[in-house]
């Protein structure tokens, strides 16, 4: 980090509250102009973005670890709701479930055997390991393939996959975090402790691999066929049920709202409360951690690894720890995102949207500062959504006197590009005038 930071901390103590107030004002303006429904959609996804940014900030801001595979961990977290909350496909487990479990056991045993050989053999090591791996691979395929075929043969149009456990959706969030943390453990174990660019390539690769696996393994999540109708988490009802509930209709009438608006808004509010609760718990824990001796150690390691190691700190161990924790938070947010959308679409995970946009959030917010990440997450998401609308609106003011036809067409066409232009401009401007982010680390 540079020590030169002109104007970075201008505004002093009031800077953070002021910026958050400005953010709230943006949301309020949005609500006043387009209604609370649209505003709440942005807020909900903004809260999830804030959690994603917190996860990346733990890795980059606390520890200086460069994770370029955020998209993979988000996708893996999204698998949580599919595995936990979907109804099991009738007959799928008896058809192929055991086969798949046995195949995984074979894979596990093979890998463990290879590791054991690697530790204990001295002569003919490479050959023996190769033989074990090849034998294990073919055995695995022999068990795995028929099991997958059996599962995918069950009602392929609407199921064709194992399904979930049919448990409450809330349970799937920790599972999403756990899945991402597991993958992070494997990546971290192999890539950490070496030079820092190992992690960058390893995560870039693992991100691609995870998304490719999710796209192709139809027995697991239906691949590109998508899983739809994922149940909502516990307190959030469906709009249709609310509109049929006389008690709710009475309350809506008391507020002077029609049933449709009232039900959609209250569903979004409930989602928002749930997400905000998770965010608050997380940020409380993270702030405690950051200000504890553990947090000081982390920053010491980040600022000078060699010095920290000389002081007797286990640098690789701490890196592994924070990498896994950060990925768990990312996975948690990935699971929350899927239960907000109600569907899992593996083909929608692309790095520009899910890796580098999260990075923009962290950098713009101020890396190393948790509140900065929250602000960056909300703000960048807000801009990402609204840029589509703003570009044309600015144009509309310029062209107010014109006829609608061709103009409208153009506005619709140019929308996605305005989003990219805006995002680039914001990032460049923030880096230019406040290179350590809007809320720099103290």
């Amino acid at each position, binding site marked *: 980090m540079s020590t030169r930071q002109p104007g970075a901390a201008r505004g002093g103590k009031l800077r953070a509250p002021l910026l958050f107030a400005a953010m709230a004002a943006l949301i309020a303006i949005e609500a006043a102009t387009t209604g609370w429904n649209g505003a709440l959609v942005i807020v909900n996804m903004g809260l999830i973005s804030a959690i994603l940014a917190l996860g990346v900030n733990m890795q980059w801001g606390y520890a200086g670890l460069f994770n370029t595979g955020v998209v993979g961990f988000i996708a893996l977290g999204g698998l949580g709701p599919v595995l936990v909350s979907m109804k099991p496909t009738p007959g799928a487990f008896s058809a192929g479930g055991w086969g798949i479990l046995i195949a995984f056991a074979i894979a596990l045993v093979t890998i463990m055997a290879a590791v054991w050989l690697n530790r204990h053999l001295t002569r003919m090591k490479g050959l023996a390991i190769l033989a074990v791996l090849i034998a294990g691979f073919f055995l695995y395929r022999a068990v795995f393939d028929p099991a997958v075929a059996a599962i995918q043969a069950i009602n392929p149009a609407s199921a064709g996959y194992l399904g979930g456990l049919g448990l409450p959706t809330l349970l799937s969030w920790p599972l999403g975090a756990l899945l991402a943390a597991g993958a992070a453990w494997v990546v971290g174990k192999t890539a950490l402790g070496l030079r820092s660019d190992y992690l960058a*390539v390893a995560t870039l690769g693992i991100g*691609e*691999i995870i998304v490719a696996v999710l796209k192709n393994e139809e027995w697991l999540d239906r691949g590109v066929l998508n899983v739809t109708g994922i149940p909502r988490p516990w307190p959030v009802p469906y709009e249709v049920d609310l509109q049929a509930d006389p008690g709710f209709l009475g309350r809506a009438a008391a507020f002077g709202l029609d049933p449709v608006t009232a039900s959609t808004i209250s569903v979004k509010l409930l989602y928002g409360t749930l997400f905000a609760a998770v965010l608050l718990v997380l940020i409380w824990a993270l702030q405690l951690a950051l200000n504890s001796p553990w947090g000081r150690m982390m920053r010491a390691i980040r600022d000078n690894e060699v010095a920290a190691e000389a002081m007797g700190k286990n640098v690789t161990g701490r890196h592994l720890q924070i990498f896994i924790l950060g990925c768990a938070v990312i996975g948690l947010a990935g699971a929350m995102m899927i239960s907000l959308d109600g569907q899992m679409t593996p083909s929608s995970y692309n790095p520009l949207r899910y890796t580098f946009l999260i990075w923009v959030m962290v950098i713009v917010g101020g890396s190393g500062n948790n509140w900065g990440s929250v602000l960056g997450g909300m703000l960048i998401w807000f801009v990402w959504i609204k840029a589509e609308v703003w570009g044309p609106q600015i144009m509309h003011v310029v062209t107010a006197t014109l006829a609608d036809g061709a103009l409208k067409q*153009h506005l619709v066409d140019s929308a*996605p590009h305005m989003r990219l232009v805006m995002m680039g401009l914001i990032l460049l401007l923030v880096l230019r005038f406040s290179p350590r982010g809007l809320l720099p680390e103290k």
Partner: protein
Amino acid sequence: MPDQLLYAMEVTLNGLMAGVMYALVALGFVLIYKASGIFNYAQGVLALFAALTLVGIQQGQVPFAHVINAITGGHLESFGWQLPSILAIGLTAGVMVLLAIVIEKLVLKHLVGQAEIILFMATIGLAYFLEGFGDVMWGADIKTLDVGLPQGINETLESVTDGLFGYGFFVDNLDIVAALVAVALVTALTLFSQYSKQGRALRAVADDHQAALSVGISLRFIWVLVWSIAGIVALVAGIMWGSKSGVQFSLSLIALKALPVLMLGGFTSIPGAIVGGLIIGMGEKLFEFFLGPLIGGATENWFAYVLALVFLVFRPQGLFGERIIERV
């Protein structure tokens, strides 16, 4: 000869040709990394932008035609000319130089002395911006680029191999041209950096910024120079990729494929970028050919990264990279 072997040879040849394409993108990265230590994420987008501009200039599109039409209510479409390829390429190269100057003036100049990661982030910002800007400027539809390069199957090679093995290899003419162009480009770059005054200044800056400054080399001029060269290399890559698969958004994503190429070849070596590209291209195709069916296909998406990781374990500085010594 057995069929399988012949197929494998053909796949190898095509893989090498695909590798040349990767190498062309990786070259631009190496140039900027060498001179300024920045990993330029925008290199892929530069190629996209160059290709878009080339098509636009060649076919006489009016830049920002959509916007102008929307504001004035006119119906501007094109200037109505069709420029010869050489002239269009020259003009586009001029645009890339201009772009390099603007980037240096507006972005890089203000970030001197910042941490490398900040500069990297700035190139991400640049990538987002240029991608959107290119689309607004030239329209976002998929364009076909034709600068008169030969395309389609190479008949000579097919008939020769047919005579030799009884099986004609399929190699695209365009790929052969790309290989020749890559050779010419690397030769030119090497000559430039070894024998010209500016080239020597460039290497001096790459060696040691401070020392170069102290003997009167202008850092800002060198940055403009490097970004111009990278822009022109991007133009070459854009022409090749654009002729092969049309000028479209996905062109910018080849930047991600260039990372493993660099890991293999070393971040600071021009021949390394070429060899790395060739290995990745060939390895990818051969792996898919031999092992792809065994493990369910679609290996091309991730094989390059795994290969790069394996390389990192055994040779962290890449094949041709300078030994990295971390000083405390």
